[in-house]
């Protein structure tokens, strides 16, 4: 017994390390993916250390400094590097705090839809029959609505706010994970190693989540990065429509909604939150492309 355990550690550990090395080899070949990863890590640091990095309180209103332009423009002040908004709040501080909300939205939405989607997808693909039919029909129903419309209406039912927006977005994203997991499980289910595990006496739970699932992860990881960035976009869109985070929360979409009326007069209040959303989503999508190249052998070298 102990010998078997020892051999297994000896034999699996190098292979796992080799696999990781191979993964990093393909991932790092994609220069964009590495840039995306570095920028993403930078955003994580900004989010974690926001209270120490941000020069001002993101909701503090400086009444003597309303709509101050960025420092390099005429009338800019050194105390407000990227200027201030209509009620005199420091743009830079609000943008830095905004990373917290966006990354939080990404993490929570992806986790919720990934966990729920995997559970339902594995069950549907493994058991088939009426369970499968019921689960997939419910997913078809969710997919019949435009995602943002369904999220908007769900938020109208649940009440506007960031938490409800996240729940709504997670629910809308879930079917994609269910479909992917189900397809992967169905193609793995009849493979020899699964049959062998079954013959060896493995139960349903073990077969589903320990034997089959780890071999279905590659497309799910790629989809997870994609939904991470989509979640940030959709949460910002809901914030922009007034249904996400509520003022004075320094969420980027909400900031844009507040800035709309200054579109022709004060460019920085409109431009900066949008750039923050764009480069964050871009960094994550660059990473996603790299992950897909590294994890999907079919697309490797194409």
């Amino acid at each position, binding site marked *: 017994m102990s010998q078997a355990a020892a051999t297994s550690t000896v034999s699996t550990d190098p292979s796992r390390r080799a696999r990781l090395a191979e993964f990093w080899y393909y991932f790092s070949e994609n220069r964009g993916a590495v840039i995306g990863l570095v920028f993403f890590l930078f955003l994580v640091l900004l989010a974690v250390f926001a209270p120490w990095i941000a020069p001002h309180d993101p909701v503090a209103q400086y009444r003597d400094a309303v709509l101050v332009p960025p420092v390099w423009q005429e009338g800019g002040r050194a105390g407000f590097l990227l200027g201030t908004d209509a009620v005199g709040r420091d743009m830079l501080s609000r943008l830095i705090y905004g990373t917290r909300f966006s990354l939080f939205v990404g993490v929570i939405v992806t986790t919720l839809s990934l966990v729920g989607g995997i559970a339902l997808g594995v069950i549907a693909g493994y058991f088939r029959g009426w369970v499968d039919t019921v689960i997939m029909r419910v997913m078809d*129903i969710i997919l*019949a609505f435009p995602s*943002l419309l369904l999220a908007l209406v769900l938020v109208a039912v649940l009440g506007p706010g960031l938490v409800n927006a996240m729940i709504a977005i997670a629910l809308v994203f879930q079917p994609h994970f269910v479909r992917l997991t189900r397809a992967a499980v169905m193609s793995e289910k009849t493979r020899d190693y699964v049959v062998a595990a079954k013959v060896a006496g493995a139960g349903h739970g073990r077969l589903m989540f320990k034997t089959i699932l780890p071999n279905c992860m590659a497309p799910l990881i790629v989809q997870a990065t994609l939904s991470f960035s989509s979640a940030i976009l959709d949460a910002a869109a809901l914030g922009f*429509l007034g249904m996400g985070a509520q003022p004075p929360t320094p969420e980027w979409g909400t900031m844009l909604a507040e800035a709309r009326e200054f579109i022709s007069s004060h460019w920085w209040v409109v431009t900066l939150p949008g750039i923050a*959303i764009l480069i964050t989503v871009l960094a994550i999508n660059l990473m996603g492309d790299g992950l897909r190249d590294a994890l999907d052998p079919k697309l490797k070298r194409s």
Partner: protein
Amino acid sequence: MPRQHGAGFKMFRFLLGRLAVLIPTFVGVSIIAFSFIRLLPGDPVALLSGERVMSPERHAEISHALGFDRPIVVQYLDYLWGVLHGDFGTSIVTKKPVIDQFFDLFPATVELSLCAILFAVILGIPAGVIAAIKRGSAVDQAMMGTALVGFSMPIFWWGLLLIMLVSGMLQWTPVSGRISLMYFFPPVTGFMLVDSLLSGQAGAFKSAVSHLILPTIVLGTIPLAVIARQTRSAMLEVLSEDYVRTARAKGLSTFRVVGVHALRNAMIPVVTTIGLQVGVMLAGAILTETIFSWPGIGKWMVDSVSRRDYAVIQGGLLVIAAVIMLVNLIVDLLYGLINPRIRH
């Protein structure tokens, strides 16, 4: 031995198979729309009638008129029966039937979506083909880099940015609406481009076009990026196949190899992608129409949510889902026509 059937029969069976999935989905969608109003916090009778303060008698009267005093199953079947006969409820704010409002506003959304998808296809397919042919070159990298930026674009901000630059600073295009207020003519087709031509008024068509440019770019940006990326990878796959190599070996020109042999097969996945953009378009229309005050169904739904016109939200949700399901069915059927392999 399986019996041989004609293509027509196969198509019919394919259609039946799709309908077998669509009908339960539609029932499910209708259950969601039906329960929506009952899940909201507050009294559904008050929400649907729009009357906040009512005497108990008035409440009972409306409750009876709306059918709330009957068992829930009967209420649902009644609702479904009404829906199948075109009764999607009545707006609390305008007191007009939801379905009439929908058909008033739908052409505006269709016009914008068609222009946006056309914009995306006309630019996206050539870009993807060129990137695939010049794979790895600076042109390829620039195009795919741009496509990734487009794919990552928060389109509500993109719209504001374009308004700020093109309408504000350059003053090239109007900021909002479908046509300048100085033109007025009765809607014939509901499509402003067609109606403005039919009206015969000088400058009307030009005004309609100038109002359409920015919304088209904004709504078309994400589909453009998706189509360009998809075309590139489909082309790369096809270009490495044997028959393309054979065509090359025969000495055919690159133009002929790409244009005749490769493109036709590469288009199959691209057409699917274009079909999948219908739902994406409607989601994008919600934001685009809000930014440009475009009087379509996207803006209608956002306004209804902020006005708490729950009857419109309930009805609109169902009509929009039904339209998407119908369009997807048509796309599936067309897809079956161009790609006979999936009919088996």
